[in-house]
């Protein structure tokens, strides 16, 4: 089993690349979540209905752009290395996060917001105590989606010197070394599945109980 041998012999390298991959993922995800949620909050403020709808259309359409295109464009204008990789990861994952957060917040039933306003909630209170908690399932869906996308795109970003497990895959493809290819593919797939499973748990935990309740 040359595949297993490869793992055992190159254990260090594989581990280092996995860690690198994970850092790229986490940094990009956190920045994308912060920026994305802030953008969505701004886009969904009262009286800005039109802007919210436009943003949903744009991000909806943008989801059809392949990740490699964003990486390529960033490469052209920024160059190679970890920084351009992270930039392209953030740009690309902003799309599902903003799409989901914006549509999630806009889909909170109007009568609930009306009741809150009539009862004397301030705009901020309505946002944080009503809109966001109710929109959490949709927002979390966007975050989960973004995570899977980031891990996958990080693999491709190695082509512009981003590092990570994609290096193994590209080496495997270029130099015809299936063991390296397998190692890279396997580890990145495993990471993606584990992260997604964890996020599914998180989603379940932070979804307000009342939304899951049924008679």
């Amino acid at each position, binding site marked *: 089993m040359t595949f297993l041998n490869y793992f055992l012999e190159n254990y260090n390298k594989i581990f280092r690349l996995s860690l690198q991959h994970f850092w790229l993922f986490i940094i990009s995800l956190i920045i994308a979540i912060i920026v994305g949620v802030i953008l969505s909050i701004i886009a969904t403020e009262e009286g800005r209905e039109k802007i919210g709808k436009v943003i949903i259309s744009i991000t909806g359409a943008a989801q059809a752009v392949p990740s490699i295109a964003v990486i390529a464009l960033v490469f052209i204008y920024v160059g190679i290395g970890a920084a351009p990789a992270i930039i392209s990861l953030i740009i690309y994952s902003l799309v599902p996060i903003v799409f989901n957060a914006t549509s999630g917040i806009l889909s909170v*039933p109007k*009568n*609930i*917001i*009306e*009741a*809150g*306003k*009539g*009862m*004397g*909630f*301030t705009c901020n*209170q309505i946002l944080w105590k*009503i809109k966001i*908690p*109710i929109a959490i399932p949709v927002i979390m869906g966007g975050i989960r989606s973004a995570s899977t996308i980031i891990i996958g795109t990080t693999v491709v970003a190695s082509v512009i010197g981003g590092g990570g497990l994609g290096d193994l895959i590209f080496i495997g493809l270029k130099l015809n070394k299936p063991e390296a290819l397998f190692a890279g593919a396997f580890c990145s797939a495993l990471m993606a599945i584990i992260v997604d499973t964890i996020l599914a748990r998180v989603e379940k935990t932070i979804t*307000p*109980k*009342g*939304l899951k*309740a*049924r*008679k």
Partner: protein
Amino acid sequence: MIELINVTKRFGEKVAVNNLSLNIEKGKLTMLIGPSGCGKTTTMRMINRLTPYNKGDIKLNGVSINKIDPVKLRRSIGYVIQEIGLFPHFTVYDNIATVPRLLKWDEKKIRKRVEELLDIVTLDFNFAYKYPLQLSGGERQRVGLARSLGADPEVLLMDEPFGAIDPINRLRLQDSFLEIQEEIKKTIVFVTHDINEAIKLGDKIVIIKDGNLVQYDDAAEILANPANKFVENLLGQDRSIKALSLKKTKDFILKNNLITVSNEETEKEIIKKLQEKKAKIAFVLDKYHKLIGRYWLEKSKKNEQVEINFDDSPIFTERNNTLNETLSTMLESGEKLLPVVNRKKIFMGTIKLNDIFEEVNK
């Protein structure tokens, strides 16, 4: 208490409320009624500044509401809308505690208040930890009402709160609501499009058409003297029968000459009691005085012997049912005598068909 002075509201070209002047009295249930689009909801929403007015002024206790911070104003006024808008992610307890928490009451006080309010709307305390999605329509309505009373506001604004309920439950809710208002005596502005509801519930009725005030008076006065053809049409052709609904069952309750027994007594004892008093019907009450059953004597067809029968869910009427609602119940059930209960099912007395007929004849 609430004065509307020459209030006008325009949406673009359309005038929704036209120079409306109105004085809403403290402690009274004032109904705003009119056809769809007449401006009644807009008028109500101007009171808590959800809709700003273009001209004129609205004063609460002598102070113009434009001078009060809108958020503070809304926290001092209860607000109930048709869809209620309960927060699905809050428990019933948290929903009711919303305004008290906004006002930073301490948790002990809030707990007491939630218990009080759940009791007033006749919901058992274990509802407190349920979620809105687990409740039926009627239960949601009651939580909505409790929520609006959370911080004990002086004023309640209600926009067709019973509109989305089925007719049977709506009647029950209306009766409970009337009883609650007897206890809490709030100043209520209630929007409805149902004239029967307006007559049954309202101390005062405001009739609005195309943004203009058409008539503002007691229900009895409007029924007796409608201001114009429009009001006549609104009231409908059966005005005299509608006038019956101005009278409530509670004013015709008989408390003497009736037999009540507890659920401890045996049938023998009950038969003896009935025969002593020469009566045919006895109502069974539990230790809280709640109505739980009915015994009646009947001559058996077989052997001319007197038999005693028991019904564990007797037909009843509520004290706030209008006379014609009680009349309907009697006609449907074929009973000439009905027990009267309050919203907590506590026995109040009985009412006789003959007494209703006498009232109609007057």
